[in-house]
């Protein structure tokens, strides 16, 4: 059964996203929340990590956190899905476990 990985720190501050991606298995999901959403911006140094991860995993961004930081959906890496708080709950119940990358 799959894992929901949440990342809540900027990839430019610490290697949480890099470590998450390196431990993600096929079928897992990655949800960027809080400052973690900063990694979703297209053209950023972290974009390639997410593009590579999307070969095996689904990547989500928590919309309210992205909006709060001025990041519109069209500024994000293509293929990332924006979800709301209800979507977060759905992801949590649809995976066997949740792992937080702090």
């Amino acid at each position, binding site marked *: 059964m799959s*894992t929901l990985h949440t990342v809540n720190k900027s990839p430019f501050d610490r*290697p*949480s996203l890099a*470590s998450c991606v*390196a*431990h*993600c*298995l096929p079928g897992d999901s990655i949800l960027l929340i809080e400052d973690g959403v900063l990694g979703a911006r297209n053209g950023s140094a972290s974009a390639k990590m997410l593009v590579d991860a999307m070969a095996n995993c689904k990547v989500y961004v928590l919309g309210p956190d992205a909006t709060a930081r001025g990041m519109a959906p069209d500024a994000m890496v293509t293929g990332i899905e924006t979800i709301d708080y209800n979507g977060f709950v759905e992801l949590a119940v649809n995976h*066997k*476990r*949740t*792992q*937080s*990358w*702090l």
Partner: protein
Amino acid sequence: MSKTNKKFLYVNRKAPHGSIYALEAIEVVLIGAAFEQQVSLAFLDDGVYQIARGQNTKQIGTKNFANIFKALGDYDVRTMYVEKESLAERGLDVSDLMEITHDTDDAEDLPSIQLVDRAEMARIMADQDVILSY
């Protein structure tokens, strides 16, 4: 006594003395150990520094909790997975880590530290019921 026996993994990714994460983790491990679950610890990224040999916090006036790891065997915490790549990236190898052992009914002083590579660590994480991250 709990009816279900679950696999708990505590994931430690922070260096020990510059923030509260590592101390909080070890305190929760000690609390959790009372509930007779299958508990193991993982050390990766800067978390490997938590079990480095020779830590002494006397001059910074904080609690030196490193030695608690050595006592975890008494609480049936017998497995500590350490990621090889995280050690290598920091110029460390297993000789830089504390010796941590546990006893079983059949044997004494068995090593608790298990070196695993990144892919093995991912599989270990995927085998858990509950992951607690610090």
